């Protein structure tokens, strides 16, 4: 991957005193990537760290070689969602020194870090023999479930250009003795969540996301049906009607949203807009442009506010991808202006607009392209945070505790 390292976290922390060094570091690790030294890799094979074979499917070939650790943890409690050992030319390194994990930038020791401990349910199987870690993966405080592991946008080349999701299904399925099926049995979902909840205080949210499937009587009807099945299975574990949850879904219409709200305990909904600029949206996200188009994705978020309430609807932007060549913005200033316009638009309507660091994954069409500077992300997270705050919005369900992917919602820890 190609990154510009003109100014690193320390220099930018001085230039942007409201952006803490930890948030800059997190975004820079996401941006530049992470590798483990042999000593660190050996250490994470220990039972307390070993996340097993990687069942997180990002097209990075990460399922090969040794077992992977869980998400990286910084000392301030934030997690860094990054695949250790993926395809990074100029990444950070984690070494093991005096029994502690240390983050290195080149030869410079940056800070002590940890990895998310392995959850207790990993290594167990459902009553149908399915390894539970293939049903749900664990972030520090969140269970991630993919009820359906195939994105139909890939058929006919309609996948988002930055996406490498589900490109390793065959490899990971082989590692799981063939247990990574396209569709997860809802009973396996129920049993896995039930088992995961036995570990005290380990989880405070369940997140669902699936590959897009526009099939059905109405567009996305089949997908919604599967989401409802999975959410109902999860919901059987809880006393109350609603449970802390997020569904990252497609552009469902109001009837589909109403079903999700009324027939399940889902608390928040997130149809990702990915790219705000209309022309770039159509170019970068051809599947989304087709099913049902940019206006449909926006309308779905606005309809969801009616159903789930203001502040309970989210949308993510793959920040930086709008600068990709050949059609992207020419300057970071133009890209920032586009993000701030989007955030303002959504915030006025009760939707939380969040940013993710764009990683040009191997397996995606944009692999090899240059990423924006870290300063771009520093300016972005400040701007997005301030806009949302001005509108009284907080990312309660997509904050440092639950997700770990958003520098802008990390800043809310001081609000």
């Amino acid at each position, binding site marked *: 991957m190609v990154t510009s390292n003109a100014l690193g976290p320390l220099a930018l922390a001085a230039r942007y*005193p409201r952006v803490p060094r930890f948030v800059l570091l997190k975004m820079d690790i996401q941006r530049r990537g992470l590798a483990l030294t042999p000593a660190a890799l050996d250490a994470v094979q220990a039972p307390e760290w070993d996340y097993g074979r990687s069942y997180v499917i990002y097209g990075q070939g990460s399922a090969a070689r040794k077992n992977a650790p869980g998400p990286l943890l910084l000392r*301030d409690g934030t997690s860094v969602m990054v695949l250790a050992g993926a395809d990074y030319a100029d990444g950070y390194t984690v070494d093991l020194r005096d029994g502690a994990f240390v983050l290195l930038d080149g030869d410079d020791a940056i800070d002590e870090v940890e990895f998310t401990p392995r959850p207790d349910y990993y290594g167990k199987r459902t009553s149908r023999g399915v390894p539970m870690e293939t049903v749900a993966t664990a972030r520090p405080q969140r269970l991630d479930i993919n009820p359906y592991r195939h994105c139909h946008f890939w058929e006919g080349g309609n996948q988002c250009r930055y996406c490498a999701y589900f490109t390793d299904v065959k490899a990971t399925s082989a590692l799981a003795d063939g247990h990574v099926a396209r569709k997860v049995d809802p009973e396996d979902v129920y049993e896995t969540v039930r088992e995961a909840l036995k570990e005290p205080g380990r989880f405070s949210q369940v997140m669902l996301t699936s590959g897009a499937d526009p099939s059905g009587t109405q567009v996305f009807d089949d997908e919604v049906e599967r989401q409802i099945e999975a959410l109902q299975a999860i919901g059987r574990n809880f006393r109350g009607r609603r449970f802390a949850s997020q569904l990252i879904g497609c552009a469902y219409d109001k009837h589909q949203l109403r079903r999700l709200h009324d027939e399940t305990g889902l608390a928040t909904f997130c149809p990702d807009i990915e790219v705000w600029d209309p022309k770039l949206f159509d170019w970068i996200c051809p599947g989304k442009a087709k099913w049902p188009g940019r206006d449909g994705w926006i309308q779905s978020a606005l309809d969801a506010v009616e159903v789930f309430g203001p502040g309970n609807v989210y949308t993510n932007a793959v920040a930086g991808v709008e600068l990709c060549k050949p059609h992207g913005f020419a300057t970071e200033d133009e890209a920032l202006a586009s993000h701030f316009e989007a955030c303002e638009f959504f915030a006025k309507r009760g939707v939380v607009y969040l940013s993710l660091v764009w990683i040009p994954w191997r397996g995606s069409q944009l692999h090899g392209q240059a990423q924006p500077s870290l300063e771009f992300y520093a300016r972005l997270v400040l701007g997005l945070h301030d806009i949302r705050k001005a509108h009284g919005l907080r990312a309660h369900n997509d904050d440092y505790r639950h997700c770990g992917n958003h520098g802008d919602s990390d800043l809310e820890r001081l609000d």
Partner: protein
Amino acid sequence: MDSLPEDLVALVGDPASTKAIAAMGPDGAPSVAVRDTLAVLDGGTLAFAEELDTSPTSRALVHTIWFGGAVAVSVRRGDRAFHLRARPWRCALVGPLFTRFLLEARARLGGDADIAAVWVLKVDEVRDDSPATLRALDEARRPHAGRHLDRASVVRSDEVADPPAVAQVPVRRYLARSS
């Protein structure tokens, strides 16, 4: 610090001692909170549970770990007290330390008890804050300067008038005027 004084360790471990954390919030205002869960880990390290991410103490600790500075810890029982200067070192949301504090909270308060995080503090400085120690230090530093002249240890007893009853001191009127 590599280790803490044994009597401080004992005082922190005493369930009857009062333990308070003071830190500066993001708005520059100090906050102070009693944290009964404060415990000594290994070396010069303390830890305590925060129930909520949104508490003034949590926000102050995040502000301090992000932007630098120190927090103060006060531990006291009766006439024995310590004052500590420390740095927030880690915020644990997961792992054995978090689980231990959560289970302790649930054992004490029931199954619905919850904590948001365990904060680990690295102690940089320990000061004996016991009143007798502070008094002795003060008197060694500035003999005669820190005492009222009518104190029993200073004035001849035959010169002391009977003190007024506390209730006769017109504090309320004074406070009313000054406000």
